[in-house]
């Protein structure tokens, strides 16, 4: 097959690639910070999409992979002196292992029961880390400033971290696309539509959804490490914000679940909207209420999200919106 035919993939990939490139060329610190946040949410939302959009398991605890993986990666780089890229990889791998363990328990549940269980897991992870001394308990960990020397000072380290994040998000897009366009992905979609029928047709649902959960959890671990490294510290309140889990979920729904472009559009739109709301004097305390309202409106009126709506409304663009 000719890879250039995969319009939907190239649209998403080039969108991320070019925006990152623009930031690197302009070299403005504020632009980099904004882009970092947007890219981070695109990566988190796209990885959530693998388990939620493709496989149909609504995960309210996606942020624990960001938190636990990020904590572990941060521990590796601040306490053990690992370079940030290896530490991030370690964080991602830990998140995948944790997903495997959690998945063995909660992926047996379906629908609302699964969703509820993932909320519980989020709270459990926060309490665990708050009381885990090697991770600094409730005060968390701080990076030793000398850790930045390796990258030529703090300013350089921030740019380096941005580039790493950019590459990770590109990897999420590639991974999402590979999953979606494979036989494995067809099996996941079958599970989403009717798990029992999928199994009768030969789809190894328990194994396949565990794999999807692993892949979905790996990337937040990477992203978490990079985010905390950029901040210079990590603490439980910052790592396990349940609110953030909800917001990522809203992003996936807003953009269009199950579509490659969906989480990208959703994360970008939501993040810009939130940026406006929390700085506006009228809405600054209401931004969560508003995201709840957005979620409600989407579920009621546009269940396919922005990209899904476009896909339905303009069938001629279907192949751009895979």
């Amino acid at each position, binding site marked *: *097959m000719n890879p250039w035919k995969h319009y939907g993939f190239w649209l998403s990939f080039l969108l991320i690639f070019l925006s990152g490139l623009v930031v690197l060329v302009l070299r403005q610190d504020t632009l980099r910070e904004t882009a970092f946040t947007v890219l981070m949410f695109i990566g988190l939302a796209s990885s959530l999409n693998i388990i939620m959009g493709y496989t149909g398991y609504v995960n309210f605890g996606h942020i624990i992979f960001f938190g636990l993986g990020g904590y572990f990666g941060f521990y590796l780089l601040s306490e053990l002196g690992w370079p940030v890229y290896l530490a991030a990889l370690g964080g991602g791998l830990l998140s995948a292992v944790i997903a495997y363990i959690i998945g063995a328990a909660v992926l047996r549940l379906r629908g609302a029961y699964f969703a509820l269980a993932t909320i519980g897991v989020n709270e459990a992870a926060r309490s665990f880390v708050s009381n885990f001394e090697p991770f600094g308990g409730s005060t968390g960990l701080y990076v030793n400033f000398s850790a930045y020397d390796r990258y030529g000072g703090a300013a350089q380290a921030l740019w380096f971290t941005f580039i790493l994040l950019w590459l990770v998000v590109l990897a999420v897009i590639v991974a999402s696309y590979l999953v979606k*366009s*494979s*036989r494995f992905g*067809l*099996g996941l*979609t*079958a599970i*989403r*539509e*009717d798990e*029992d*029928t*999928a*199994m*009768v*047709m*030969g*789809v*190894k*649902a*328990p194994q396949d959804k565990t794999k999807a959960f692993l892949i979905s959890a790996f990337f937040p671990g990477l992203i978490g490490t990079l985010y905390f490294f950029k901040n210079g510290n990590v603490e439980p309140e910052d790592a396990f914000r349940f609110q953030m889990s909800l917001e990522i979920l809203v992003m996936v729904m807003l953009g269009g679940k199950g579509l490659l472009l969906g989480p990208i559009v959703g994360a970008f739109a939501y993040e810009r909207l939130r940026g406006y709301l929390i700085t506006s004097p009228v809405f600054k305390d209401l931004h969560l209420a508003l995201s709840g309202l957005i979620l409600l409106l989407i579920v009621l009126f546009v269940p396919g999200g922005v990209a899904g709506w476009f896909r339905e409304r303009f069938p001629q663009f279907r192949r751009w919106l895979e």
Partner: protein
Amino acid sequence: MILQVQEVSKRFGGLQALQDVSFEIAEGEILGLIGPNGSGKTTLFNVINGVYPPTQGQVVFRGEKITGLPSYEVARRGLARAHQVVRPLNDLTVRENVMVGACFGRERHSLGRAAPIADQALAQVGLTDRADQLAVTLNVAQKKRLEMARALAAQPYLLLLDEVLAGLNPLEIAGMMETVRQIRDQGYTILMIEHVMQAIMSISDRLIVLDYGQLIASGTPAEVAANPQVIEAYLGAPEMTARLLAD
């Protein structure tokens, strides 16, 4: 023997759904499974293809014990099923639905190889012109055909058909019967549940009859129709008895 069911029992709490059911299917045979409502036919299918394990007894498929294996393992060994209550994967196209069968059935084809097999199966059941529609848009008769196509695309050794004629009008029944005959002529081994009596009488090589979870008769359609126990089992439905007797 392609399938041997040996003294299978299934109990749900206080309900004995199946009791000591034993039978065999030879390769290339069409075996009809009949019985009044609630007699355990679909439960028997569920036990055979691993939806639930039997409480007692063994299921042997092509010489291998498959008792208690999960349904996807059974499917991969070459046993495909069309459901009584149609269960299309709604948000997938008709072709993608059938490709799931080809990708995860006996041969476990790659996506590229599954597409032509799916198209072939769709042609066989007469759904070619619906291939790119979403499955949710099909009507009941078409969904039944989709169930068949999915099962066929798995290229199974044994096909379990659960009431593929139920809910169809007489014209659709005739068309579906023709399709089943064509499939039989290709040499598939079929175990089918059916309530439309003329249909199953005319198409089956042999029949087995379930009543209250027990096998009460087996034999050629003529033998079974003349069996007093079978007539008694169906007495609750007088027209059915009349039809059986008339055959």
